[in-house]
């Protein structure tokens, strides 16, 4: 039984772990090297997707998350009162194939997902155009995913943190981790920052793509790598995109191991009337430069879905780093190599959606309750990760 926990990273995953633990009576300290919610959580779109996940352990977690979010957003709104609205909306995802060759892979992917419990609706082209009247009519197949949702990730993470604070969690900002505190028998029992030493029964690394760096500081090697993404934002316009609409080749880009640039269209509108256009994936370390060739490719591909966007202006662009795992599964659980160390990271582009489930799993394991899902697939000691632990070490 764990009574006190340090969480490293105040993004949405750290915030979820903090709330799940603090509401179960655990003494929680969240430590972030800079300001809370200023990293990966603030650099994405806030997609809560089941549609891009193939049957398997990540989809299991995503389906659980899809059921959890409506309850969580209502709970937080109730608890926090006047807090800003986190804009949770189950707007649904429309996935379309834009080539003749792409149609049948999309439909068979959707069939496999349906067998795994995902709600899917295969649409005729005419029905797809009724959902999205400005969609390119030259699409070759369309599947609607009613469970796909979105949230404003920064507000959601701040709300989770605020709730944790109400349950007496402490949040230390601008406090980089400088080293471990080890017990006489070698267990991790705390961390040091430039100004203080914090002790606890366990330490959770929830530092997204910087988790590898934090782990190294604490004495273990961890294969979490940054995967760059860029999003374009148009100026506001009359609402003409009503769901999350994306090109079926997005699924291939998410699951790929390729380090080179990959782009795939994801288009959605915000309440303000701006349209967010993604997506890109590129492994270039922590290079945060805005690359025009990436932006140009994203913009050009978006026109395959919505030709009308050609007449609109891109107002700005932003980017972030996803925490990429070489075996494409989140890392949630105790580290078998260093007693006292736990991980809650490696969700790649799905961390916003999967954060609440991750927090609940960590908390259940720590307080000795039965986790709501089988946690073995996410364990740092899983077989699929072993070769990478050796390779990195």
């Amino acid at each position: 039984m764990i009574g006190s926990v340090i969480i490293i990273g105040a993004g949405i995953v750290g915030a979820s772990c903090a709330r799940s633990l603090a509401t179960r009576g655990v003494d929680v300290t969240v430590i972030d090297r800079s300001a809370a919610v200023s990293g990966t959580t603030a650099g994405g779109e806030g997609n809560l997707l089941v549609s891009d996940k193939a049957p398997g352990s990540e989809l299991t977690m995503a389906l659980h998350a899809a059921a959890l979010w409506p309850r969580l957003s209502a709970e937080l709104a109730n608890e926090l009162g006047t807090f800003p609205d986190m804009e949770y909306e189950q707007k649904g995802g429309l996935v379309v194939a834009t080539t003749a060759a792409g149609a049948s892979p999309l439909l068979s992917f959707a069939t496999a997902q349906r067998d795994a419990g995902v709600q899917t609706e295969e649409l005729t082209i005419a029905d797809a155009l009724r959902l999205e009247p400005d969609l390119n009519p030259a699409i070759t197949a369309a599947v609607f995913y009613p469970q796909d949702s979105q949230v404003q990730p920064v507000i959601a993470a701040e709300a989770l943190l605020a709730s944790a604070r109400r349950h007496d969690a402490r949040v230390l900002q601008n406090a980089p981790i400088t080293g471990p505190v080890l017990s006489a028998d070698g267990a991790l029992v705390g961390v040091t920052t430039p100004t203080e030493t914090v002790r606890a029964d366990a330490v959770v690394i929830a530092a997204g793509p910087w988790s590898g760096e934090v782990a190294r500081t604490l004495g273990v090697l961890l294969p979490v790598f940054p995967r760059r993404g860029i999003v374009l934002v148009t100026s506001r316009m009359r609402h003409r995109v009503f769901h999350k609409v994306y090109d079926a080749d997005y699924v291939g880009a998410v699951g790929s191991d390729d380090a080179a640039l990959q782009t795939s269209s994801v288009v959605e509108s915000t309440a303000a009337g701006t349209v967010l256009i993604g997506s890109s994936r590129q492994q270039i370390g922590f290079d945060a430069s805005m690359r025009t060739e990436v932006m140009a490719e994203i913009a050009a591909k978006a026109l395959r879905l919505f030709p009308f966007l050609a007449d609109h202006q891109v107002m700005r662009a932003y980017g972030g780093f996803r925490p990429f795992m070489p075996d494409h599964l989140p890392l949630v659980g105790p580290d078998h190599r260093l007693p006292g160390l736990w991980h809650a990271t490696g969700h790649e582009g799905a961390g916003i959606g999967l954060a609440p489930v991750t927090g609940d799993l960590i908390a259940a394991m720590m307080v000795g309750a039965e986790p709501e899902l089988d946690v073995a697939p996410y364990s740092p000691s899983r077989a699929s990760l072993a070769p990478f632990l050796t390779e990195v070490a």
Partner: protein
Amino acid sequence: MVSRLIPFRDDPIQPSEPTPVTITFDGEPLSGVVGQSIAGVIMANERLGFRRTSANDAPRGVFCGIGVCFDCLVVIDGVEDVRACQRRARDGDVVTTQHHTLPEGEGS
């Protein structure tokens, strides 16, 4: 904030005599001078609200004034979402404020 057009004879930068320009703003004729932006003409006539937001129906006007923020969007001669601060006023321009309500019945 108050914006006003200085009579050209009082203007310390001593411009040449301006040519007047007239536009309509939500049907009302507003006068300005050639060279002013649409935003300049509207503000010199003491109007500050150019549009209302979809989410909260809140007024928006000139925020940055240099084409970056896209807050001062208006409809000009039927074209939506034109930045009033970036468009020179031309005689006879028909300018209207805009407001788009949120789409209803999200999802299918």
